């Protein structure tokens, strides 16, 4: 293993250190990357994908693609936006080819416990509201409103002009508030 792989893991290693270690063959470093970014990536995909059951499958594909292309990442410092970029492209590609997931999603929901906690109700309400937004708008909302990304960073990840992202966020917010019956 290269020096980078021997990074002292008692302190939180930087993304760049983890990327360097993973590039030199450390699965432990790559597992740390997965642990570090699985929650934000999966949350983002659950909001972007109309069918929630697709989200975790796509998230796995995202990390697998990341492992395969890790050598193409010029610097580990932009790992997060790179991962989200892969996630966004993968979600768009999958949305077109996953019509079958409708059936699977219905089957998945049929096997879920039916207890409706307030959190679950709110989550389902948000999912249904998000599903009514156009795909690009949904992604901008998921990053900027739910994920706390800046418009500029979201614009880089989604490969959209800054003005378009701002417009998507503004319209998306208004639409969600209207559907959910809440006011800003």
């Amino acid at each position, binding site marked *: 293993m290269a020096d980078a792989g021997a990074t002292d893991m008692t302190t939180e290693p930087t993304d760049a250190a983890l990327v360097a270690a993973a590039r030199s063959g450390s699965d*432990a470093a790559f597992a740390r990357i997965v642990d570090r970014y699985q929650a934000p990536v999966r949350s983002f995909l659950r909001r972007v994908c109309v069918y929630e059951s697709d989200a975790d499958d796509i998230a796995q594909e995202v990390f697998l693609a990341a492992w395969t292309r890790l050598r193409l990442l010029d610097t580990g410092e932009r790992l997060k936006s790179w991962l989200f970029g892969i996630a966004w492209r993968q979600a768009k590609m999958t949305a077109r080819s996953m019509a079958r997931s409708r059936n699977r999603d219905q089957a998945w929901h049929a096997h879920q416990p039916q207890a409706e906690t307030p959190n679950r109700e709110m989550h389902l*309400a948000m*999912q249904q509201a998000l599903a009514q937004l156009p795909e690009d708008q949904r992604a901008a909302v998921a990053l900027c409103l739910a994920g706390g990304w800046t418009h500029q960073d979201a614009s880089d990840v989604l490969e959209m002009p800054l003005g378009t992202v701002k417009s998507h966020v503004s319209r998306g917010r208004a639409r969600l508030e209207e559907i959910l019956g809440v006011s800003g």
Partner: protein
Amino acid sequence: MTREPENMESRTDALSAFFEAGEVAPVDPGFRIAVMEAVARRRFRLGLAIRTGVLALLVILAGLLIPVVDQLATALGAPLLEILVLVLLAVLGAFAAQAWLQRHPDLPRLKLGRLRLR
């Protein structure tokens, strides 16, 4: 990632509670294991593809060399040709032995020596 507060949306609005209700657990070990298994499968397939490619190249090379070996056999005579065949067999044997020793898929190698998972 640099943050630009003036350009950042706040989650402290009416929608934040709805978004927070849909957050996934910070770390799901099952998800990590699934990813690492997929990585191991891909690594194995890549290794297999590379070895198959190398073997195919060796076969093609051997096919191209047969006429040359024929000419060499005539020029060198039987004793030297036997030595050449033995050397070739030794090389092929070494290649086969190396492939046999590395026949297992590279399962996720959690190198826990100095790089510790929490």
